[in-house]
């Protein structure tokens, strides 16, 4: 069973052509004058419509995430989007990947909101617990870098206990003290919704996932070729720890562009991918990695190149050819995309794919075209690549059979009042 999730990062599609030259960063101190709330009214609804469309096409899940002060993500609160989706969808898993739990004080708020989403959706929530990027966590939200992981660990403990315990309990944390923890409501899924932990390559995150049997989600925009090395490291760690090798332990974000044929893919999508890579990823490197945010172990494992002066313009001149050949994007006609995706799923041993089918400033019609081709001509043949694990239900929601389906009841919701029993 492979789960396909349609993910929308909700990028701002109106960054100017000279964004890279005129602005130092798309994140943290992005020029707020570039945001136009009137245009955003349409942008939000277009993106939410696409997520609903993806359910209609048969995607297993629809995905949202949390970023702050970020030009490629106008979704500081993914729970608000997910709440909207919970009312207008009924089949797809709601993948909130996730809430940066170290940012909330008390983190009980996350336990409550995720529980609400799980209950409203009838048990469809996939709960993501990212540590959060340094840009979001430290620079935008002011958390002390060297204490971020400690605070994350405490928030995790609080949330899991809040969901698990049947009686009010006192929580004497270092960062949050609560005399009466009593999570109300609680999630439908027991013991808790599937938990996905997005990581960008922190070694400690692997062990955290394995300690708790959580899904490790490698979310980068580097694509499956660059991701292979890291995922190999993860699976080696799984083996070292003596854990089962269920593909459900791993998910991966990948950009896809599907067209009638390879040439058409370039013609339709190249400019929008380049918008994403050349504008949306234009992050001032001084915000990439606050000192103390990464562990010493991870620094020693080496991602030093980004701070070197001579590498500051590394991503400036990416071309479509670079993106395709480098595996940043799997693009082309359905056959090309299907073959490469199958290889990726097998090579990286993936249980879930976060498909990035809307990217950058891609307009709605192209997004739907690519998404529908993916759903109809790529996805179906790849659903059952792991027959040995068909009965492994640990990593994906099992919703209520007879859950409420509000989008079918619009007339019911808007019916005029009638006198209730007992009224005069």
């Amino acid at each position, binding site marked *: 069973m492979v789960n396909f999730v349609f993910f929308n990062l909700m990028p701002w599609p109106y960054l100017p052509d000279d964004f890279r030259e005129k602005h130092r960063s798309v994140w943290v101190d992005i020029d707020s004058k570039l945001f136009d709330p009137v245009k955003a009214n349409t942008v939000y609804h277009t993106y939410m419509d696409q997520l609903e469309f993806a359910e209609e096409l048969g995607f297993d899940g629809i995905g949202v995430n949390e970023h702050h002060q970020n030009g490629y993500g106008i979704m500081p609160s993914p729970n608000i989007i997910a709440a909207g989706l919970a009312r207008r969808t009924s089949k797809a898993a709601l993948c909130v990947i996730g809430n940066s739990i170290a940012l909330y004080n008390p983190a009980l708020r996350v336990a409550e909101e995720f529980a609400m989403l799980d209950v409203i959706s009838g048990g469809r929530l996939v709960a993501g617990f990212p540590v959060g990027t340094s840009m979001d966590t*430290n*620079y935008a939200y*002011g958390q*002390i*870098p*060297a*204490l971020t992981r400690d605070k994350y660990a405490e928030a995790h403990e609080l949330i899991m206990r809040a969901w698990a315990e049947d009686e009010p309990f006192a929580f004497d944390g*270092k960062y949050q003290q609560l005399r009466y923890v009593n999570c109300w409501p609680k999630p439908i899924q027991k013991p808790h919704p599937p938990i996905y932990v997005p990581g960008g390559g922190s070694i400690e995150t692997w062990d955290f996932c394995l300690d708790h049997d959580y899904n490790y989600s490698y979310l980068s925009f580097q694509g499956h070729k660059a991701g292979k090395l890291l995922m190999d490291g993860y699976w080696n760690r799984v083996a070292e720890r003596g854990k089962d090798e269920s593909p459900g332990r791993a998910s991966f974000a990948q950009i896809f562009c599907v067209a009638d044929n390879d040439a058409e893919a370039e013609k339709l999508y190249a400019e929008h991918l380049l918008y994403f890579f050349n504008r949306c990823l234009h992050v*001032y*490197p*001084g*915000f990439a990695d*606050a*000192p*103390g*945010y*990464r562990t*010493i172990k991870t*620094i*020693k494992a*080496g991602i*030093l190149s980004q*701070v*070197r*002066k001579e590498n500051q313009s590394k991503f400036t001149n990416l071309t479509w050819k670079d993106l395709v050949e480098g595996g940043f994007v799997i693009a082309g006609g359905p056959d090309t995309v299907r073959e490469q995706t199958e290889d990726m799923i097998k090579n990286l041993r993936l249980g879930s794919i976060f498909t990035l089918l809307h990217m950058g400033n891609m307009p709605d019609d192209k997004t739907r075209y690519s998404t529908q081709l993916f759903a109809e001509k790529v996805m179906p043949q790849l659903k059952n690549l792991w027959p040995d694990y068909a009965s492994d239900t640990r990593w994906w929601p099992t919703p209520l059979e007879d859950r409420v389906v509000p989008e079918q009841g619009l007339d019911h919701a808007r019916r005029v009042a009638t006198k209730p029993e007992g009224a005069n």
Partner: protein
Amino acid sequence: MAPTTGETQITTARGIEVVVRQWAPASPAAAEGDILWFHSMAGLAHTEETLDALGQRFRVHAPLWPGYSELENEGSVEDMLDFALLGWDIADTLGLDHPHVVGHSMGAMVAAEMACLARRDLSRLVLVAPYGLWLDSHPIPDIFAVLPFQLAELLLADPANAAKLLTPGQDMGTDEGLAQFMVQNARRLGTAGKVLFPIPNRRLSKRLYRLSAPTRLVLGEADALITAPYGEAWQAAVPHADLVTLAGAGHLSNLDQPAALAEAVAAFLGA
């Protein structure tokens, strides 16, 4: 005459191991007292001319904060109270009786806290380019959002003096040298962030009314971080403090103008 120098490792009553670099006059009887010196967020350089000069007259004890020594115990301090009590624990472990306390930058922020907490336990206080106050009208540049190659310009009047911070043989141009720097920087500034990030204000101003030790403020004329308005704010909060401004010195006046800094400190403590 050159002072005698050494390094010792102590364990405080709380069990925290601390490396302390020490200087003392060649003739012990000539010592004019003890100085407890708390270094800046940049740490101590391999060669500290300021401390070499002060060591000719005083016994100088310069502990390295957790994260700044080879001991990998930066997890032992988490907040300002941890730092301030560690400072006094170090003084106790070293057996110092009413030392002069001198702090530089982040170290001055801690030194001021110490002087407020235990106002009768020190002799004189010198605050060099002290962090600790925040003026909305003059936001201190964010040292946590600059790249390694931009730090020198921010911290020094003469960026070439940054070379003094490198350990002998360290070359930032090589991958190995850069890796070493990145690890060192993460440990050091990661620790500094516990009191300086995201806004270097841990409400010290509420406690400065308790600061009663004779106090001198020393500011670098070219300090891009702790600028002249901060000198005024400190003097408003600590009216009995005098203020010395060092020409040609940035935030790290120990590297830009080591002799002038030593003179400004010694003149006050030896008075």
